[in-house]
Each structure stands twice: as structure tokens, then as C-alpha cells.
């Protein structure tokens, strides 16, 4: 028994010693390397950047020959760091440097590696290095077995302007993983109008979530030509698709679709109504003011809220409508109208009018506040009654407020 224990002690302590040594050695090695690299970086960075700003032909001339293997790592890092932060000629020159120094070849090889993270890393770097030679190999990497590699290849292709890859990419929207959906969508959006055709074409073959992503992409790229197609989706069977289609229509902003969006305000499902209201606000559709005011009576908070916000965005006519709704028969509409007027600073503006010389204007303001008090949403008025800089305004407001609220 004792022997076993002694044995255990010996083995655990040796493992412990080994661990400690490993930790210390690892840290020491890492830090020395990092310090060396930082020092070299300070020396090399100005040279490389100077080369990028200038017009010398080859990077080798600037570096006075091929960099040594440890220097190569530093040079690579400098180029990768800067290349993603600039555009234009400097970027092209740095891309050329990566080609000249053979980094692109290394990455192309890495794309064939057996370890998936090497492949992913290489794809990512190829996108940054911006070499047209990489388009073909990256396109094949779109069929990689690892989703991470596929995504990075797609991203790189997007950066290289490989629109042909859009079609393959769209399929990736079918993956249930939302994180990757977002990234794919982002890449497609980055491709702009050129991706739209592929995206729309693939719509019917996609999963529900994929279809929603397509609608979002269209809404972000905002191609006028997609209006008709979106309208057809605005009468889809699925609530979510109708809602997103309305949203996308709102961001494209073609005024011809106003009638359809207005009728979507009567959709049986509230998410559609909410999105239609939002879209009309975004498009600044003054024509839709009566219907938006009507939507303040909706059963759903989001619809009321979006409608009120839309009215506010539309401007003076919308605000007028909101003021009228303060006296509406519907309690929810009254509440929403007052809250939005408070948010728009309208209540404060009206309060100043209470001190106006002109009797008519003063009366109008008084009537407004009577209505607000009657609507039962008095938060801002109570604050103003306490803190308004003008005495007469404070007094006036106090008389208007019901006693228990004071």
C-alpha cells in the first residue's frame, strides 16, 4: 500500500514538475520570440510602408534582398495588417509585394493542407492578398468538408470579386447555423447588385430561414429592379416572409409600392403590419398618414409603436396626425400618440406656447394639454410642471394636471 502511495507521489510530482517547466518554457519562448519580432517590426515597417507609398518596382529592392526566414514572418504580418486597412494603389502595391515574396504560393499550398484550420487560414489570407490566381482554387474550396473553410473561402472570393461564386454561396444560406448565415449574407451583400440575381433565383430552393436571409440581403443591397419580385413575396403564405418583404420594400423605397404597403397595414398578422408601418415611415410616405394614424389603434404594441414612429419620421404632417390622435376614442392610440410626441420634443414645444402673447395660440396650446391630460399620459407634463424655466408655464401646467398627479 505504502509503496503504491510513494509511487503515486513520485509520478504526480514529476508530472507537476513537467507541467511547471512546460508553462515556464512556453512562456519564455513565446515572449522572446515576440520581443524579437516587435523589434524587427519597428525596423522593417517604415521600409515597407515607404515602399507602398512610393513607386519603386520590387519590394526586394526596398528590403535589400530576400528577407531571412524569421524576417519573413514579420514582413508577412506587416503586410497583412496594413493591406486590410487601405484601398487603392497602396493596397495593390502591398498585394504585389505578397505575390513577389512568394506568400501567395505558400497560401495556395496551404489551401491543400490536411489540417482544416490551415486551409481556413490560407483561404482568409488569400482574400487579403488579393491575387486573382486564387479565384479558381478558392472556388473549389467552397466544396470543402469543413463549414469554416467554406465560409472563409467564400469571404475571400467576395473580396476578390468572384461573383461566379455567389451561386454556390447562396446554398450556404440553408445551413441552420445563424452565425454562418450572417457571414454568408454579409459576403453576398458586399458583392452588391451582382449577387442579387443569383440570390433571387435560388430563393425557392432555400429553407425558410434561408429565404428570410435572402429578403434581408435584397433589403440591404436595395436594387430597384427587385421591387416587383418583392411585391410577389409580400403576399406569400408565410407571415415572416411577408413581414421581411415589406421591410425590404421600405428600404428600397420605390414610391409605387405605397398602395400595397398600405394594404399590408391590414394584414391579419401583426409582424407584417408592424413592418409595413415601419417601411412607410422610412419612405416618408405623406400619402399614408391617415392609414398610419389608424394603425395607432392596433391591438399590438409593436404595430402602434412603429406607426407612431413612422408618423414622427414623416415630419410635420405626421406630427399633426399624432396630435389629433391624442383625442382619439382608443386608449392605446392616445397613449402611443402622446409618448411619441413626448419623444419628438413636441410636448416641450407646445409648453412654450403656453406663454405666448397671442391668445389664440395660447388657447390652442391649452387645448392640446387638456387633451394630453385626458389621454392619461402625463409623465412629461409632470416633469415640465416642476422644472420648466418659465413661471407662467409651470403654473399653467399645474392647473391642468389632475390633483392626485401633482
Amino acid at each position, binding site marked *: 500500500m505504502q509503496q503504491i502511495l510513494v509511487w503515486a507521489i513520485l509520478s504526480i510530482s514529476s508530472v507537476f514538475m513537467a507541467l511547471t517547466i512546460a508553462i515556464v518554457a512556453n512562456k519564455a519562448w513565446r515572449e522572446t520570440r515576440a520581443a524579437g519580432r516587435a523589434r524587427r517590426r519597428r525596423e522593417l515597417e517604415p521600409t515597407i*510602408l515607404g515602399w507602398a507609398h512610393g513607386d519603386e518596382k520590387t519590394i526586394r529592392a526596398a528590403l535589400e534582398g530576400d528577407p531571412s526566414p524569421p524576417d519573413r514572418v514579420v514582413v508577412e504580418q506587416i503586410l497583412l495588417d496594413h493591406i486590410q486597412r*487601405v484601398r487603392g494603389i*497602396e493596397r495593390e502595391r502591398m498585394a504585389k509585394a505578397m505575390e513577389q515574396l512568394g506568400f501567395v504560393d505558400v497560401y495556395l499550398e496551404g489551401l491543400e493542407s490536411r489540417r482544416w484550420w490551415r486551409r481556413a487560414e490560407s483561404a482568409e489570407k488569400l482574400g487579403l492578398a488579393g491575387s486573382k490566381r486564387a479565384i479558381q482554387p478558392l472556388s473549389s474550396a467552397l466544396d470543402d468538408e469543413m463549414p469554416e473553410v467554406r465560409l472563409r473561402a467564400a469571404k475571400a472570393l467576395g473580396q476578390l470579386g468572384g461573383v461566379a461564386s455567389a451561386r454556390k454561396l447562396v446554398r450556404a444560406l440553408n445551413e441552420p447555423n445563424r452565425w454562418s448565415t450572417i457571414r454568408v449574407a454579409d459576403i453576398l451583400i458586399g458583392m452588391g447588385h451582382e449577387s442579387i440575381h443569383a440570390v433571387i433565383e435560388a430563393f425557392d430552393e432555400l429553407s425558410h430561414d434561408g429565404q428570410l436571409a435572402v429578403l434581408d440581403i435584397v433589403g440591404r443591397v436595395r436594387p430597384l429592379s427587385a421591387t416587383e419580385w418583392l411585391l410577389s413575396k409580400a403576399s406569400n403564405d408565410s407571415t415572416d416572409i411577408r413581414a421581411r418583404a415589406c421591410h425590404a420594400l421600405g428600404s428600397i423605397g420605390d414610391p409605387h409600392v405605397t398602395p400595397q404597403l398600405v394594404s399590408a397595414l391590414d394584414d391579419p398578422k401583426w409582424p407584417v403590419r408592424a413592418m409595413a408601418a415601419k417601411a412607410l415611415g422610412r419612405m416618408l410616405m405623406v400619402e399614408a398618414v391617415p392609414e398610419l394614424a389608424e394603425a395607432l389603434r392596433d391591438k399590438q404594441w409593436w404595430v402602434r409603436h412603429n406607426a407612431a414612429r413612422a408618423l414622427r419620421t414623416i415630419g410635420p404632417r405626421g406630427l399633426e396626425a399624432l396630435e389629433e390622435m391624442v383625442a382619439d376614442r382608443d386608449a392605446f392610440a392616445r397613449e402611443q400618440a402622446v409618448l411619441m410626441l413626448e419623444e419628438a420634443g413636441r410636448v416641450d414645444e407646445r409648453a412654450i406656447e403656453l406663454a405666448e402673447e397671442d391668445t389664440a395660440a395660447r388657447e390652442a396650446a391649452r387645448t392640446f394639454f387638456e387633451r394630453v391630460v385626458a389621454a392619461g399620459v402625463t409623465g412629461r407634463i409632470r416633469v415640465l410642471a416642476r422644472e420648466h424655466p418659465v413661471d407662467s408655464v409651470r403654473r399653467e401646467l399645474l392647473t391642468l394636471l389632475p390633483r392626485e398627479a401633482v
Partner: protein
Amino acid sequence: MESHQILVVDDDPITARFIASLLQEHGYDVLVAEDGAHALEIVERHELAMVVSDLVMPYRDGYSVLRAIRRNEKYRDLPVLLLSMRDREEDIVKGLEEGADDYVIKPFNARELMARIRKILRTRKVS
């Protein structure tokens, strides 16, 4: 005496170094600050020709640096160019309305940035 010092403010050291090297290439002296508070200290202490500032930074963002500069009698006319990843209309308009002389979106084109900086410095000299 005409100042040739330009202050670059960016919390990302790589971008800051790039712009600095670009400006030095064109014969300017460059000071670098990594946050808004530090930037204002430098503005206070040095005779600057111009400030090139990032918009999104910890503690004090670009807007706040800009406002502080515009509010102070002493260096109210100091030209400020804002740099930002934010490419939405509202952000650009807000930047210009707050008093920026120009607004450049990241990632930027180095030659274009340089041209804009030179133009700002030229117009300031004339007025």
C-alpha cells in the same frame, strides 16, 4: 511661423502608424494619440496644422474631440478630418455638421486621403 505638425488620433495603432508614415512621406511632422483624452492634451500643448481623428474610440470618441476643439477659443479654427468605418449617411452628416472639415470612410484610399488633407490645408491658408 507655419506649422507642419499633424496630429493623428486612432485607437488602432496599425492604422495610426500607416497614416503617420504616409504623412511623413509627404513632409509633415506627425504626432500620434491613441485616445481622445490624450489627443486633447496634445492639441493644448502643440501648435498644430491639423487633426486627423478616428471616430469610434474608447473614452472619448471623435465627435467629442471635435466638439472640444470647436468650443475652445484658442484653436477653434484647427482643421479636423474624421476617419471612420461607419459609412451610413447619418454618421457622415453628423460629423460634418459637428464641424469636421471632411469625413473619410475606412478602409481608405491613401492617395485620396492625402489629397483631401492637402486641400483642407490649402483652403485654410487662403482664408
